[in-house]
């Protein structure tokens, strides 16, 4: 039997990371927990309030509304981006020069900074000077994302689909490229049609990458801030005020640090729960 050598000094190698995480994550997190139980008017003067802010946030219509909008937004973009990404990946060539061209084109939106995406779509969709805005209005459809909630939602969703479907495409494409030719040859011998090949070969083989794609898109869209903030600023009214925008409004706009801290911790716990569920699903699939 081979004896295993254990060297605890290896822990020293991770000490810098531990110190870094302590400074950029743990200490701010502890501070947020402390703030969530207190009221402050600045100048480092705090008044203990107990669970008041948590109860206030959990029972507030404002939080329910922004949480609902967040869920709807995430659900809508997942329902569009995942099937669309898979469809585009299926349509892309697997080899030859066009494969490289397609991959570069797909990667382009991912390289653009989020605030630039928001600014681009803002100008692009403006009803008076934007190409999209003028074209849609020219077709006789009343479109003004700065005043009409439906237009604002459509523009925000379109912007996110434009920006992030590529990620799903690239992941799905990687999954498709990893399928050995023998599977397709066997399907051809069996006389399987395109749908049968997709249903019984491609989709099961893409399961793991699609799980990761769903996880990434869920997390990103659930924490989305920059793009809708630059595009609509959360408006018109509060119709595109998602959780993170609402949180920033409470913390920095109204300086309600206690309720904002409670809200951010609730937000964090929801994200952590979903992350853990996805992680468990992925790990269970890998074990199988």
């Amino acid at each position: 039997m081979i004896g295993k050598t254990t060297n605890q000094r290896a822990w020293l190698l991770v000490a810098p990371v531990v110190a870094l995480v302590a400074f950029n994550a743990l200490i701010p997190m502890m501070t947020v927990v402390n703030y969530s139980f207190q009221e402050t008017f600045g100048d480092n003067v705090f008044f203990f309030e107990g669970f008041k802010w948590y109860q206030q946030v959990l029972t507030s219509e404002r939080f329910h509304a922004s949480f609902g909008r967040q869920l709807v937004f995430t659900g809508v973009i997942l329902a569009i981006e995942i099937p669309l990404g898979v469809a585009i990946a299926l349509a892309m060539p697997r080899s030859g020069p066009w494969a490289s061209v397609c991959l570069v084109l797909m990667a382009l939106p991912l390289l653009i900074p989020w605030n630039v995406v928001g600014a681009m779509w803002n100008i692009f969709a403006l009803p008076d000077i934007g190409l999209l805005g003028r074209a849609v209005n020219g077709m006789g459809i009343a479109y003004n994302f700065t005043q009409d909630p439906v237009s604002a939602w459509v523009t925000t969703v379109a912007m996110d689909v434009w920006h992030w479907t590529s990620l799903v495409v690239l992941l799905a494409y990687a999954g498709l490229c990893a399928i050995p030719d023998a599977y397709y040859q066997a399907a051809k011998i069996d006389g399987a049609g395109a749908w049968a090949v997709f249903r019984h070969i491609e989709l099961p083989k893409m399961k793991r990458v699609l799980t990761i794609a769903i996880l990434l898109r869920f997390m990103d869209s659930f924490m989305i801030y920059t793009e809708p903030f630059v595009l609509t600023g959360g408006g018109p009214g509060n119709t595109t005020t998602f959780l993170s925008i609402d949180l920033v409004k409470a913390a920095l706009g109204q300086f309600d640090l206690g309720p904002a801290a409670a809200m951010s911790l609730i937000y964090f716990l929801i994200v952590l729960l979903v992350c853990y569920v996805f992680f468990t699903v992925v790990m269970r699939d890998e074990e199988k």
Partner: protein
Amino acid sequence: MSLSWMAWTWPTAVFFVCIALALAGMTIWELRRPGGGARRGVLGLDTTRGDRLFITLLGSAFIHLAWLGLAGPPVWAALGISVIYGVAVFRWV
């Protein structure tokens, strides 16, 4: 260096000390009985002691939030439910 900006209170300090003690306790447990006590529980998940602590803490947080949202403070009852939940997780999950 002043830490007044962190706005410490006794209840939050006690909370974090409890978390730190739980982690220290888990470390000692692991040193005494290495291997993490891995097993497949009632949920069909392969869990170690660390996983079970995480599930306990995360679940307890949601039990407290649900209690605050539905009934409001005090949260002693939620703490009691969380303890029962934690024992159940460590026993069966």
